[in-house]
């Protein structure tokens, strides 16, 4: 068991964290103080999160099968797609092109995270409505957080997301799947690496690319878990939690990094409490299996 935990710590935490730090450092060049150089670093965010996640995913979950046969195979492909979209977003392009690409990615995530069982039992109209609704929700979370990240450089956005996803990881573990918990842990560690670099380089921004990997992947994890978890409100709370960062925007007294991060984590903790309540309600005194 100790060997298992050591392996998890190395592959699910240390490797993604290290890869993210290396990518961010190379991209943002902390040793250069010239502000004009900051433009060069945008591509670092998506690569840091994308590569960190992909390495962790393969280490924990092995290579995905092609064509994809299960939800976690799709998670791998979403990470690849998110990384590509993120790098593309780091290049200046018209808003309508950026938003179109974003919508395609959100719709793809939404469609493939509807289970096959659900798809076979519902009409095309209902499936279209669910796909569009979920895609719109992912798009909104991504775009609103992006707006915030454009204004707030530094560690608050990646740090808040990292902690939030760490809490969500506990939710996945208790709710449905150790594997999803591990994968969320990998994503959290990658974001943690980006946050660490942003702490020492305040001009580092999470806008234009980083969120293209983090948000679709985070939402895909929630949607995948939702296929099995029962409490209806928890996935909505978890998905909306990053938007709590906006509250810190509105109130001047809460602009400190710690305050903003805590605000994002509170809804996730609330979601976790709801799940634990649900599980306690269901508990039948079973021993550990």
């Amino acid at each position, binding site marked *: 068991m100790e060997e298992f935990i050591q392996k998890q710590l190395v592959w699910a935490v240390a490797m993604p964290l290290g890869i993210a730090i290396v990518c961010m450092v190379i991209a943002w060049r902390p040793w250069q103080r010239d502000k004009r150089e900051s433009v060069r670093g945008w591509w670092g965010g998506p690569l840091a999160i994308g590569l960190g996640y992909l390495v962790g995913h393969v280490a924990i979950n*092995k290579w995905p099968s092609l064509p994809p*046969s299960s939800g976690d195979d799709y998670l791998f492909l979403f990470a690849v797609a998110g990384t590509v979209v993120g790098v593309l977003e780091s290049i200046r392009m018209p808003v309508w092109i950026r938003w179109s690409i974003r919508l395609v990615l959100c719709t793809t995530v939404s469609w493939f995270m509807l289970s096959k069982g659900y798809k076979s039992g519902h009409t095309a109209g209902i499936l279209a409505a669910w796909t569009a609704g979920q895609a719109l929700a992912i798009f909104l979370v991504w775009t609103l957080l992006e707006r915030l990240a454009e204004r707030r450089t530094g560690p608050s956005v990646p740090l808040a997301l990292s902690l939030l996803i760490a809490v969500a990881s506990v939710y996945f573990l208790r709710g449905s799947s150790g594997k999803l918990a591990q994968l969320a842990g990998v994503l959290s560690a990658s974001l943690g690496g980006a946050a660490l670099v942003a702490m020492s380089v305040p001009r580092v921004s999470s806008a234009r690319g980083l969120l293209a990997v983090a948000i679709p992947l985070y939402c895909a994890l929630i949607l995948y*878990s939702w296929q*099995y978890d029962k409490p209806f409100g928890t996935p909505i709370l978890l998905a909306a939690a990053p938007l709590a960062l906006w509250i810190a925007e509105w109130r001047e007294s809460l602009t400190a990094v710690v305050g903003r991060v805590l605000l994002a984590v509170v809804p996730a903790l609330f979601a976790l409490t709801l799940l634990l309540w649900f599980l306690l309600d269901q508990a039948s005194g079973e021993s550990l*299996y």
Partner: protein
Amino acid sequence: MGKLMTRIGCAALLSVSALTVAGMALPRAAANVAASSTRQANVDTFKIDPAHSSVVFKVKHMGVSYVYGRFNEFSGEVVWDGEDPTKHSIKAEVKATSVDTNSNGRDNHLRGPDFFDSANSPTIVFESTGVKESGSDKYEVEGKLTLHGVTKPINVTIEKVGLADLPRMGKRLGLACEFTVKRSEFGMTYGIDGAVSDEVTILLAFECGVGGR
């Protein structure tokens, strides 16, 4: 005139030969038709009777013990040719959500993304592609197993436990087999480091009836 007679003679000879060959061949063809209909009569299509059948599996837990589980919902069809075993065919479909290991929490975990991912791969399917007799009431069956959305070829040895025409139940066929698969080959890798073994032994015991009885 001589040539004409020769031609007529040849034609007559050919006709006689043709009639003779046809006369020899016809009874054979008739016999073939009769054999074919006899064989048809020996081919039965059975349905698996879930009340008298079991789909059981066992895995090693933490390397120290075996844990057994079963599936409660399954169905299938067996085509059994009484004369030509190569014509046998078997198809069985198991609902992944019906997994039962006598622990609700564990069953929910098994249904989830870590193992069967039953929302995305709701059924486990075995379909034979070829059968040959390998001994007394033993058959080597080649087939495809679809598990966790992944389809792999598989060879199993099936034993015919019995075949009888029972007074109230009609024709019944009993088949049984035991085989081992590596779950990692089907993309089920969670906990493979020690908690739950890679090798899963599957035990099947089917009682099948004709006409849904």
